[in-house]
């Protein structure tokens, strides 16, 4: 086992860190306040190759390992979790194609992302189907060499700016999860509408909307996998994306820890810097220890994928532990800052709001525990 980063891993990490520090950080508070879509930051990320990291080199991507992707993603999230979510939303949407698409589908549907700034959305969640994916009611009806989609999706990241949508719909609701099928809708065809940008608690730089399908036609050639395989496609996608989501938590927590170390060295009470009070030290020590623990779980979950193995268990460990950890660490960061931490002029309350989302999206912390238990009982 070798914990030493390779020269190339360090170079990738340094490049992402420089972008996060010099390009993202100075604007993070602005985009949090306004909740505008950070187009300039995302275009800069595109120029530097910090988006679409999952696309294989055969289709114009960089061919990064999963381990390299999570190292880069931690840096992006350290800059701003909302920006990181916007960037990896493309991976989430494209993973079904990467994992289950045909060569033709990969060429047609992935390559354009490597040529220009382009966003895609992963459309799984519905108003009546979040954790319970199989309860979905968006339908796909076959008509000759097309399918016709009808239904509504909610909380869709990048919805307002995407011109490609990876959509899960059922060909037969009675079949429950065995009816779910995955499709890729190109462009914004007639019948596809997106709602207003949601006013969110955190990660406000990321765009979140409803996506509605009213008789939207998709060619059969854009069905990913077979009819009824969509549930498996979605689950395989989430196995692959959970290490990235976990790394967002690690990036948020590291930012909270660093701010807390700085502040606790400066703020004085009872005649000394607060970091000299043991009660504060214990908080700082726990923050550092848990951040690093989550990082190691994240690395492992990515490494298992790099070995070509199934990582369901490890990626649920990583995502759940890292999300719960980031919530605790950022709450403690606000605590270290005292009353100032509660104020928007200071950077830590944003981190606390940003962290909360990771316990919810891509499978809540409760759902992760269900997955873990199911794996343990196998």
């Amino acid at each position, binding site marked *: 086992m070798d914990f030493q980063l390779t020269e*190339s891993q360090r170079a990738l990490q340094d*490049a992402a860190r420089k972008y996060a520090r010099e390009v993202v950080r100075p604007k993070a508070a602005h985009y949090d306040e306004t909740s505008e879509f950070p187009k300039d930051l995302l275009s800069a990320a595109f120029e*530097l190759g910090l988006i679409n990291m999952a696309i294989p080199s055969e289709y114009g991507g960089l061919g990064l390992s999963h381990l390299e992707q999570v190292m880069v993603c931690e840096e992006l999230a350290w800059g701003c979790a909302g920006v990181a979510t916007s960037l990896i939303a493309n991976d989430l949407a494209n993973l079904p194609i990467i994992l289950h698409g045909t060569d033709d589908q990969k060429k047609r549907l992935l390559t354009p992302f490597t040529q220009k700034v382009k966003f895609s959305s992963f459309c799984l969640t519905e108003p009546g189907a979040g954790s319970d994916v199989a309860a979905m009611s968006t339908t796909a009806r076959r008509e000759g060499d097309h399918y016709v989609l009808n239904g509504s999706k909610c909380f869709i990241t990048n919805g307002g700016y995407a011109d490609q949508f990876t959509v899960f719909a059922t060909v037969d609701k009675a079949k429950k999860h065995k009816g779910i099928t995955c499709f890729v809708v190109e462009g914004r065809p007639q019948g596809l509408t997106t709602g207003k940008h949601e006013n969110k608690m955190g990660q406000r730089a990321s765009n979140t909307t409803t996506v509605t399908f009213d008789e939207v036609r998709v060619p059969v050639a854009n069905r990913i996998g077979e009819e009824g395989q969509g549930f498996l496609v979605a689950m395989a996608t989430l196995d692959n994306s959970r290490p990235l989501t976990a790394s967002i938590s690690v990036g948020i927590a590291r930012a909270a820890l660093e701010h807390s170390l700085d502040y606790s060295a400066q703020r004085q009470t009872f005649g000394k810097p607060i970091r000299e009070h043991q009660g504060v030290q214990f908080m700082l020590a726990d923050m550092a220890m848990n951040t690093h623990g989550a990082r190691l779980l994240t690395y492992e979950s990515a490494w298992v994928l790099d070995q070509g193995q199934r990582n369901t268990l490890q990626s649920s460990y990583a995502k759940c532990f890292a999300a719960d950890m980031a919530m605790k660490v950022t709450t403690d960061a606000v605590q270290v800052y005292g009353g100032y931490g509660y104020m928007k002029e200071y950077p830590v309350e944003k981190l606390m709001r940003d962290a909360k989302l990771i316990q919810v999206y891509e499978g809540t912390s409760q759902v992760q525990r269900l997955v873990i238990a199911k794996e343990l009982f196998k």
Partner: protein
Amino acid sequence: MKILVTAKRVEDPESKIKVKPDGSGIVQEGLKYKINPFDEIGVEEGLRLAAKHGGEVVVVSIGTKDVQEQLRHALAMGATRAVWVNHAGALDQLGIAALLQKVVEKEKPDLVVLGKQSIDDDQNQVGQYLAEFLGWGQATFASKVESLESEAEKNKVPAVALTADGKAVRVVREVDNGLATLEVQLPAVVTTDLRLNQPRYASLPGIMKAKSKPIEELTPEKLGVDVTPRIQVLKMSAPPARKAGIKVPDVATLVEKLHNEAKVV
């Protein structure tokens, strides 16, 4: 146009630098390293010149295998290939310039661009020695007329300008009381100052491409250079810690202290 640039490995200015208690050097443990920022500006200028006039940028570094990290950084920025002079022991500025002279004689570039100094030893000698050893013209402390935020900067135009006949470069230099413009015949040596340009970021595609770019290995022996240092570092010490300042109650006291204690007014 063939341009040779340098990429010295230096301590990251963001690392905490501590002098060893016995004064024999600095504590290496936990330090991070990066390319000397002035060299990075040199790499950027080389790339801009090559983009404008065609040609290639070759990057050179001297040191142990670790310096390959800085060579790869320059390759990731866009340099075509690298030369690594493998040497582990101490070096002084004359030794470095002598090694670079041999590399230059081998590579035959039209222009050598180096940082005006490296941020570790702050010697500011190598470029000048190198020009002298080669018998070439030199333009040190290259800067630019426009501010960093100018449109020209954004368009990535080189600040070092090739003359119309392509036989010389015009260089704006930072001098004590402003800017001076020099024209130097090629081949020449240019050293970079801080305001010459803002180096591009290494991109992920650049980093991945750099992995397969060639690094040629040389040694002082192969180059036939005796690098025995003529300078010996006897002792290093940290600058004395700054004493805390004082607060004065009013302007009158301030003026009184400036006059009687600091003796500046």
